[in-house]
């Protein structure tokens, strides 16, 4: 499968496709608490008001094209936040994230689908928003529908689909974007076993095709199957950036399964 890239983890790679440079992002502890106007218009230099915490801080790494990276850590340690930063759907409060290629984010994948529109309209809408041209979508349309096994429901409004079908069509669309970078955030926890295996095969195909991947999972077997390099996040810090086996061993040592 993927062979490891000849650069020691933690070192800057030449011609990186993703560079995360001393990134920090803060969230409010209590989402309901209101900000004041004063807060909004004061400068955003390092100020930490009470009730806020750093979800990630001082995180730096870079990724070479073709690497498959597993992000490891307990719940609430910033894994999904890191993925969203790389997808550039949230912006860091400190530091910078640079992504030099198109991204296919398998994050909240069903989010872009509109209940009242049909499956067909939704496919064109979602793929279009991710930057595909109409002709390109038309070329891939049949294949997307085949993959999702949803041929009979093309003109059904999205809201009438079962939750399994929704995830299938969403995965089929996003995974056909043919972007060089793929972000996977535990979306595949849904869906039946057969479809999950199909998704995994699609991911393997894409990796073999030279794509760069970020993979968030709690499943050790999946991590070892896909990834070559691991990032271990704990309490908002990047504790370890090493080959995936080393990272998983360290994680298991820190938090032994009881």
């Amino acid at each position: 499968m993927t062979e490891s890239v000849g650069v020691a983890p933690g070192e800057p790679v030449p011609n990186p496709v993703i560079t995360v440079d001393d990134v920090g992002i803060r969230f409010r502890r209590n989402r309901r608490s209101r900000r004041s106007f004063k807060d909004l218009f004061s400068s955003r230099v390092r100020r930490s008001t009470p009730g806020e915490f750093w979800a990630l801080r001082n995180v730096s790494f870079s990724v070479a094209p073709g690497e498959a990276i597993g992000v490891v850590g307990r719940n609430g340690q910033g894994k999904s936040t890191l993925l969203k930063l790389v997808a550039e759907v949230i912006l860091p409060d400190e530091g910078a994230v640079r992504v030099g290629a198109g991204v296919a984010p398998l994050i909240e994948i069903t989010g872009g689908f509109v209940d009242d529109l049909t499956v067909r309209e939704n496919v064109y809408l979602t793929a279009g928003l991710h930057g595909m041209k109409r002709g390109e979508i038309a070329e891939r349309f049949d294949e997307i529908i085949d993959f999702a096994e949803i041929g009979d429901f093309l003109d059904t409004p999205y809201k009438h689909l079962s939750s399994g079908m929704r995830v299938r069509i969403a995965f089929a669309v996003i995974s056909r974007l043919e972007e060089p970078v793929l972000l996977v955030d535990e979306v595949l926890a849904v869906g039946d076993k057969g479809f999950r295996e199909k998704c995994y095969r699609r991911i393997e195909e894409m990796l073999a095709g030279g794509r760069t991947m970020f993979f968030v999972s709690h499943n050790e077997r999946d991590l070892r199957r896909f990834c070559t390099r691991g990032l271990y996040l704990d309490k908002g810090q990047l504790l370890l950036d090493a080959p995936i086996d080393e990272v998983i061993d360290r994680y298991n040592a820190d938090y032994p399964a009881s």
Partner: protein
Amino acid sequence: MTAAVPARRAWTPFARYRHSLWLLTSRDLKVRYSTSALGYFWSILDPLVMAGIYWFVFTQVFDRGAGHDPYIVFLLTGLLPWMWFTGAVSDTTRAFLKESKLIRSTKIPRTIWVFRLVLSKGIEFLASIPVVAVFAIFAGATLHWEVVYSVLAIVIQTVLIAGIGLIVAPLVVFFRDLERAVKLALRFLFYASPIIYSLTDLTDLPEYVYVLASFNPLSGIFSLYRAAFFPQDLDWFAVGLSAAISAILLAAGIIVFRRCERYVLKGI
């Protein structure tokens, strides 16, 4: 092995922006028209009913001392652009909240979430123009060459709504009360703007009322639209103020939006 996947497409940022904006705008229109069989009819029914009510009240019940004849045409030339304004501004209060899932999963320039509303409501406005034409024919109103000013009015109104939207949309994420405040302000603005009356009607009142009303950017915009049938209503002082205030609001909107963007993304 590290053979990178070849870059597939050649989008310029501008083409990509336009493409995304159009996708979301047409999605809005499609959703509105696919959920009700009477789609287009509904979008013009609201202003028609309102125009009918005001026509009845002011020409049949009271002896009207405002506006021009034919009054129904006078009303519609103000009401239809008003529907665009009020529809777009009240929709921008939910621009981010309603689409939070999509915003959390797609990376497109965030101003699109506001501009798509300006555009989709604007298209509905354009689609409602035949209604005025029909009434103008039946009521016997004369069309003047000043109808070309409508283009200018559309430009100023687009700038105005975009500016207000860029301010309102992000702030509502932090101050949910703002949604109600906006609704109230819009209701007030309906009577404070020359819709059921004309700006020239205010000249009978103390002078400061007229000056104050001219600072309402909608006054100048509506006088431009109305010039098509009522050229005597054209008021360049008000138009100049409208253009200036709209430009200032757009500049302010861009600044507010930039400042708030990162907090909005975290807050939704």
